[in-house]
């Protein structure tokens, strides 16, 4: 009998020049529930940092798997109520009240696994431009919701905190699933780092940098990471943005007791 195990590594950093407290990306995982997710709060929204963190917290806590647009919409509705309730009880300045009227927005990507007797399966759900990439050996075999680095420049539809726009947004949810192979690496990345990673992967001779990124995250080599990312920013390939990354490496351990 083979047992599956997950090695999880992560990296979270604010825009250059801002403090950790101002980072609007959020990430989290629960290996017992085999759930991993990341949210990228939109700078233009009202308190998108809190919205991103709430989405992550409640996606991991949810008692049922959230793997279809319908369930995602129901679940967003409940998280939205918590978000709105918090602000309704406070007295706000005219400008905060006006900003709050528009609500918060975040890109979201979630990854979960479930086992059957003969295999392990992954399921991913995404709305916006935070991505799940599946790297198998030397190939990116899945990239969702976006796969082309050039497509990151548009304004994506995000998860809104205002439920009146939720129905329209859920039409843009992307769900995908597949069978896990031992050695698979699943990368959850917020938009700027996803675009950078995909661009490097496509360019001849640049893949080593993408793989170095994974290695530096896995080894928590933050100085090396900063050098690599600063290089990306200086040559204009990496936008100055918050960065969130989770790398999940799946292994199959053979149980020798059998």
């Amino acid at each position, binding site marked *: 009998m083979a047992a599956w195990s997950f090695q999880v590594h992560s990296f979270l950093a604010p825009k250059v*020049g801002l403090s950790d407290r101002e980072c609007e990306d959020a990430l989290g995982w629960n290996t017992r529930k085999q759930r991993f997710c990341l949210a990228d709060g939109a700078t233009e929204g009202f308190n998108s*940092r809190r919205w991103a963190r709430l989405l992550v917290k409640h996606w991991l806590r949810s008692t049922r798997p959230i793997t279809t647009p319908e369930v995602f919409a129901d679940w967003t509705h409940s998280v939205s109520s918590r978000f709105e309730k918090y602000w309704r009880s406070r007295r706000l300045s*005219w400008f*905060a*009240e006006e900003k709050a009227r528009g609500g918060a927005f975040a890109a979201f990507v979630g990854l979960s696994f479930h086992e059957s007797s003969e295999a392990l399966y992954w399921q991913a759900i995404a709305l916006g431009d935070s991505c799940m990439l599946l790297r198998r050996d030397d190939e990116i075999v899945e990239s969702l919701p976006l796969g082309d680095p050039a497509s990151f420049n548009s304004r994506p539809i995000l998860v809104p905190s205002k439920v*009146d726009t939720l129905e329209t947004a859920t039409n843009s949810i992307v769900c995908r699933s597949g069978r896990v192979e031992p050695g698979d690496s699943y990368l959850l990345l917020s938009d700027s780092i996803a675009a950078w990673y995909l661009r490097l992967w496509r360019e001849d001779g640049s893949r080593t940098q993408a793989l170095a990124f994974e290695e530096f995250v896995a080894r928590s080599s933050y100085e090396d990471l900063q050098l690599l990312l600063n290089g990306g920013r200086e040559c204009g390939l990496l936008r100055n943005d918050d960065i969130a990354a989770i790398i999940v490496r799946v292994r199959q351990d053979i149980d020798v007791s059998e």
Partner: protein
Amino acid sequence: MAYSAEISRGNPTCFVFLLDQSGSMADQFGGEQSQRKADFVADVVNRTLHDIVIRCTKTEEVRNYYYISIVGYGAAVGPAFSGNLSGKSLVPVSEVAELPARIENRTKRVPDGAGGLVETQVRFPVWMDPVSNGGTPMCQAFSLVKGIIDQWLSEHKNSFPPTVLHLTDGESTDGDPSGVAQGILDQSTADGKVLLFNCHVSSRHSLKIEYPSDESRLPDDFARTLFRISSPLPEAFRRAAGEIGLSAPEGARGFVFNGDPVSVAQFFDIGTRPANLR
């Protein structure tokens, strides 16, 4: 590349609203439900300031991405803020947010979700009031703006350069403004030259000309003078124009001649859109 500096609290930019407040600004402007030009312009500037404040609002804090100046010229030339900011020539946006002269309740029509419109009450902060009195001392006004910008530039050498949004309905009454305006255009930061955009408004329903790239369609010397002291629109501003359906080809100047109320609203919208906020 010019006009690409990131706008942050450490590296803010500056908007100067330069407004004609001469006697002719009391004339009617627009169609059936017309307002006086001065009233309309004050409303548009107040709404633009509102949008700028909201853009800089992060939860309950307003970040100082911008410094704001309003200069009026007519019977007098000087800062045009009303209320607590009265007399101030340049104010960080957080102070603008905290100190409107007053907050009015206004009725706004919004979509009712079923294809119709419904009236709702909104809070409308007011920072400046309409004024229409005296001549059009444009040279004096540009001189004052140049001084404000000189001071600001000495402290923000690497910032996205200041943007001057000038609105007028008539010719200068204190001489040719070209020289002093050119003095503004010649100033720069490491990111590019100061941007000066000019919007001329007219009550006469004459043919309006928006964001031209050459002088061929301009009707007279006054229009050509304003064209020549208008900066070419950088890429982000041309994109903003495109997003609201206006054509602004490469080389288009930040210049409107014979503008109507729609042109004025669009002029302030496009002119306050340097995008690269951190």
